[in-house]
């Protein structure tokens, strides 16, 4: 559904940030973008959103050329959640925050109410409509940012390091939400440093290094190659480490480990 072809981007036409990136994202996928700090991950998502314009290259969404699109055009299709929710929350109530985008897109009052309700329901924020976003906890702020992105019913949701600064409890909740949206058909682009999330949730991984596309494939392909993983500044997910320790082969998720351990125990019995 989203095709990026030979994308180039540079600051001041000199410092290359993205160099000939070609990526294809299919509908209903969870695509993770990984790589060292400063490798161009966030820049890539901003280009997709139209916040930054490419120097050269070609972008297509559902067959339509979006290379020159601006954020206002893309907002109908893509929800973007910034890394730091504090930087995107501005309204004085949770309701107004979520209602802002649909209002801008010219939804009727009835539609706005309905979409806000749905977005708050989906993120578990119902009942907090009149609260001030600034007074929410870090985890709730992040979910509110997601709710605002959901209100316009986007086809694609971009999450830039959604688990940064979240504790492990909120992290679990966020990932469960992401999974749910995906099962409902939403395409998700996820920027993250957390290999465990990639291994467990992503269908596809894109690894950038110094603006170059260094890997494009499934998590299994990436993490089966330890040398490559480490050379790209990444690490093996915990599950892979544990799987190796117990001689279970490559395991990507804790569930896989439990399953294999169980099978082995049965075999012994």
């Amino acid at each position: 559904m989203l095709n990026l072809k030979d994308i180039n981007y540079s600051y001041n036409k000199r410092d290359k940030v993205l160099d000939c990136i070609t990526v294809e994202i299919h509908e209903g996928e969870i695509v993770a973008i990984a790589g060292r700090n400063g490798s161009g991950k966030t820049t890539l998502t901003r280009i997709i959103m139209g916040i930054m314009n490419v120097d050269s290259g070609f972008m297509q969404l559902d067959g339509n050329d979006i290379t020159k699109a601006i954020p206002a055009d893309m907002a109908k299709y893509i929800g973007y959640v910034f890394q730091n929710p504090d930087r995107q929350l501005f309204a004085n109530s949770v309701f107004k925050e979520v209602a802002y985008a649909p209002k801008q897109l010219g939804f009727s009052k009835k539609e706005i109410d309905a979409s806000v309700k749905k977005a708050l329901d989906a993120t578990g924020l119902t009942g907090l409509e009149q609260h001030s976003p600034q007074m929410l906890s870090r985890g709730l702020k992040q979910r509110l940012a997601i709710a605002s992105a959901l209100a316009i019913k986007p086809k694609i949701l971009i999450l830039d390091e959604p688990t940064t600064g979240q504790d492990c409890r909120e992290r679990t909740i966020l990932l469960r939400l992401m999974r749910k949206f995906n099962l409902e058909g939403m395409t998700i682009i996820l920027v993250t440093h957390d290999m465990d999330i990639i291994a467990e949730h992503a269908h596809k991984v894109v690894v950038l290094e110094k603006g170059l596309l260094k890997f494009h494939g499934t998590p299994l392909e990436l993490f089966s190659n330890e040398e490559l993983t480490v050379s790209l500044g990444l690490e093996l997910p915990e599950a892979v480490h544990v799987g190796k320790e117990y001689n279970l082969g490559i395991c990507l998720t804790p569930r896989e480990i439990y399953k294999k351990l169980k099978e082995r125990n049965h075999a012994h019995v």
Partner: protein
Amino acid sequence: MENENQNEGGLRWITITTLLLAIGVILRMISPSIGGISLNWNIVMYCLAIMLCRPTSGQGLGIGIVAGLVATMTSKAALPYANLISEPIAGYLCAYMANKRFFNFKIANVNVEPAFMAFITTIISGGIFVTVTKVIINLPINVYLYAMLPTVGIMAVLGMIVGQILYKPANKIFNVNHGVKNKYTLNHMNLTIDKGSFTVVTGVNGSGKTTLLLTIAGARTNYFGGVKNSKLIVNDIDIMHTELAELNHQVGMVMADYEGQLVTETVGDEIAFSLENLGLEPNEILKKRSQVLEMVGLNGLEDRLITSLSGGQKQRLAIATVLVVDSPILVLDEPIAAIDPEGAIEIYSLLKELNTKYHKTIIVAEHDLKYISDCVTQLIVLDNGELKYAGTMDECLSFMYHSKVYAEAIPLKSKIYLELGDKKC
């Protein structure tokens, strides 16, 4: 290090005391006097105020002086001026007892501190008052023993009853936090961090990790208020009563938003900035700067722009700016949030080196426990402002697993060990 944390507003104690003393005066004037004995509202009121605010003994003395002046002007006694001696002494002792919580115990599930405090304070105040009166006016000993002292006793008993009755509503009206558990960010926390240890603090967001770190670094009392009735000793220094400038030499802190801590343009300037503030000679600054950059592995990058550094490098630079001060204790708040895995491993191996090679005492708040297993000597889990467990990593993880306290944070590897261990049992 020992820490007990409570919230305390700046001038609240003055407001509450003034208000209660004023009410006391009015009540004293309109109260009936039966056979020359009436309740001394004055004492009961400042006693209540002291229990609500727990001021220092010095402040208690101030309250006593004001109460003494008021009593002198309103008293119908033979020698009103004796109040100027009795009330200050009683106020001072009352505040002292309130701070030490002499009578903080329960009878039949009711905290009887107000009753005891009002009784003892009235006895002290009244006792001194009648003694001074007796000596100065030279009254017969029989009047003193059989009339005046018993009157004091009766007043004390009345004060005791009224004080106990009034304390609860007064506490509600003035919305005082004392005794309400959830209001503390950190609640009766007793914790020892050994010299040269590597302590990791974990817990869900809002459990009090950052507050604990800021308190240790001295920022909590000096910048943000709070934390008064606590004792916190770091390296034999009482943090609660030490100037921040002095504390900087003891505790270095790297905040969660470490980029906000970097203020200059280049790496070299950033380090020099800390040293200039200490008033060092230029050649000494250069020497020290290269030493510390070597320590954190940023040597040769003096002229690099800070904006061009990677996240991990910036974090290491923030650590370096704190290291140059040579403080023996280093406090870091979530040092690897938003840093790539490679950077995260670097940061923790650097911290380990600082701990083992340079003998720094290190205290870190962290969610991601998979990086710390190599370096940690003490793991602490906080929940809702309370210290739930402190011990070695294995002990603490086992506690978290079995007691289900922030069990989400247990690294997969340890979790599987714990689960397999359980099955064997």
